């Protein structure tokens, strides 16, 4: 982005809550089920059917509000938002208009939430993006498009959907990326959504405008749609900001419009210009009663999770690892849990962190497994680092044992035992081997005594060989030195 322009970005994020049943009926929520198998009179909008609120969805939304330090409203209500579309069973959506569950609040952007290539050049460390509101509504159905017709599957219709609306505080595509990453991470930590963009569990619309840096009023707002991944949001915004700046530089006037991002072509395309303003005719849904949140807030507060950014600080403090390592470990909730389970039983948590961040993550990546599918018990990883720490095996053996643990899921002790890898640390046995080696290699002894210090390495190698690699190399070195210096 040219430095003499400022971009202003606000995001509207829709998040599907991971309740078992839908927002206003008891139909199960299941991604990828056979079409129209999770529908009932209520979510099909049949004549006479009525909605009843799913309390868990309200709790989850309030919990999300607490995480982002929103004000949770003492009273909220549901309204009907009227518009016609075939994916809307009732042709009105039950949503929240003037009394949403949550208002205000903020999402902190952390260094590691930025794209990797941008982490070195974060403009505004500790940035917080303010939220306007979080409200709860029902999701619509899914349309499939054929040549001359469209088909509708109402399985998704009625899934509880949180809409999180940010202030236009975001100034770059990278910040938008960091915002979405941070948001997603916190939602997963709170266990309110799986927030998988590919499955449509997290969907995002962007409003973006640019203006010359000397100008105070905002530029013309353009809405971007069809953003299917967090990196796609970054690409789309980068393209759109450039497009708008170029247009302004050419002296063109931008007009308020909605554009569609085509990720394959890397361009945005005009969908529609500003229509006659929507007239949604909101009014309180007479089928539903107002909600006093106080009745469920104590239970919600009890569910407040340790947030990733606090966990990161704690890991640094408790386990003596670097902030960067703690950041990577806490980036993924499951990984942070794995690490902590292992580190708790370990003598040197730092060594556990190293094993997790280097060996374990690459092994998982190579095997295409998630942390939950990790074949190594966290306790076993702690034991492995313990064996190395205690000198029972050397670090090279450690890698071998690790590979075996990953393949078989067995405990490290068992593997060491089975493979006969245990280091010989019996002083007498090592002394005997050393003496035998000295006797068998007079030339090297002579060299050593003549001041060729490196000759001891040859002798050391011979001892290790004789022990079939099991001798503790440090002990061997010490013993050889003692014997050769005639002590």
């Amino acid at each position, binding site marked *: 982005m040219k430095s003499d322009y400022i971009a202003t970005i606000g995001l509207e994020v829709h998040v599907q809550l991971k309740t078992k*049943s839908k927002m206003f009926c008891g*139909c199960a929520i299941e991604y990828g089920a056979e079409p*129209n198998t999770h529908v009932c009179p209520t979510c099909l909008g049949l004549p006479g059917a009525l909605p009843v609120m*799913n309390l868990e969805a309200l709790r989850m939304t309030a919990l999300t509000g607490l995480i982002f330090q929103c004000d949770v409203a003492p009273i909220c209500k549901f309204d009907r938002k009227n518009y016609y579309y075939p994916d809307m069973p009732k042709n009105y959506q039950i949503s929240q208009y003037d009394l949403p569950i949550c208002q205000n609040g903020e999402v902190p952007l952390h260094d590691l939430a930025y794209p990797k290539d941008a982490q070195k050049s974060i403009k505004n460390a500790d940035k917080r993006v303010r939220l306007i509101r979080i409200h709860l509504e029902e999701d619509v159905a899914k349309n499939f498009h*054929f040549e*001359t017709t*469209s*088909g509708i599957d109402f399985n998704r219709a009625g899934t509880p959907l949180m809409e999180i609306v940010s202030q236009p505080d975001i100034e770059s595509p990278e910040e938008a990326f960091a915002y979405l990453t941070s948001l997603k991470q916190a939602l997963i930590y709170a266990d309110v959504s799986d927030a998988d963009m590919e499955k449509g569990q997290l969907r995002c619309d962007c409003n973006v405008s640019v203006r010359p840096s000397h100008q105070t009023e905002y530029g013309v707002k353009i809405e971007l749609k069809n953003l299917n991944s967090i990196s796609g949001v970054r690409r789309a915004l980068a393209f759109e900001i450039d497009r708008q700046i170029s247009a302004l530089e050419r002296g063109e006037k931008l007009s308020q419009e909605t554009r569609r991002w085509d990720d394959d072509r890397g361009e945005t395309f005009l969908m529609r210009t500003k229509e006659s303003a929507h007239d949604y005719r909101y009014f309180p849904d007479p089928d539903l*009663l107002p909600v006093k949140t106080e009745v469920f807030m104590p239970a919600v507060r009890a569910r407040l999770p340790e947030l990733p950014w606090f966990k990161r600080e704690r890991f640094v403090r408790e386990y003596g690892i670097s902030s960067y390592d703690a950041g990577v470990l806490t980036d993924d909730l499951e990984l942070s849990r794995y690490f902590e389970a292992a580190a708790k039983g370990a003598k040197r948590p730092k060594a556990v962190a190293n094993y997790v961040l280097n060996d374990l993550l690459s092994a998982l990546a190579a095997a295409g497994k998630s942390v939950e599918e990790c074949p190594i018990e966290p306790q076993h990883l702690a034991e492995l680092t313990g064996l190395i720490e205690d000198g029972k095996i050397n670090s090279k053996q450690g890698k071998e044992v690790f590979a075996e643990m990953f393949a078989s899921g067995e405990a490290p002790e068992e593997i060491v035992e089975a493979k006969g890898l245990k280091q010989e640390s019996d002083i007498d046995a090592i002394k005997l081997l050393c003496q035998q080696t000295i006797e068998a290699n007079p030339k090297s002894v002579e060299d050593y005594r003549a001041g060729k210090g490196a000759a001891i390495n040859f002798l050391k190698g011979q001892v290790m060989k004789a022990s079939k690699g099991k001798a503790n190399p440090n002990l061997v070195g010490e013993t050889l030195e003692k014997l050769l210096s005639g002590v």
Partner: protein
Amino acid sequence: MSATKFDVRYIAELARIKLEPAEIATFESQLGHVLEHVEKLNQLDVSEVEPTAHSFPIYNIFREDQIRPSLEREAALANAPRQAQGLFIVTKVVE
């Protein structure tokens, strides 16, 4: 609230009802009369009055997050004017 005449064409569009020009004229005049009657409400000072949405001040009617049986797909689709491959079929929707 002076609105004895109003744009029936625009409102009908919002309500997704096609109307013939003659119908528009009829509705305009008939509903104009109704709205004149409704203007009576302007005589009242309601600035200090809370609106009534439900006749009883009740709150917090919820259900727990429990799955209940859905309709069989055949039953769900049985009333569809047109269906195929388990989907409700409509004229092509252009996004």
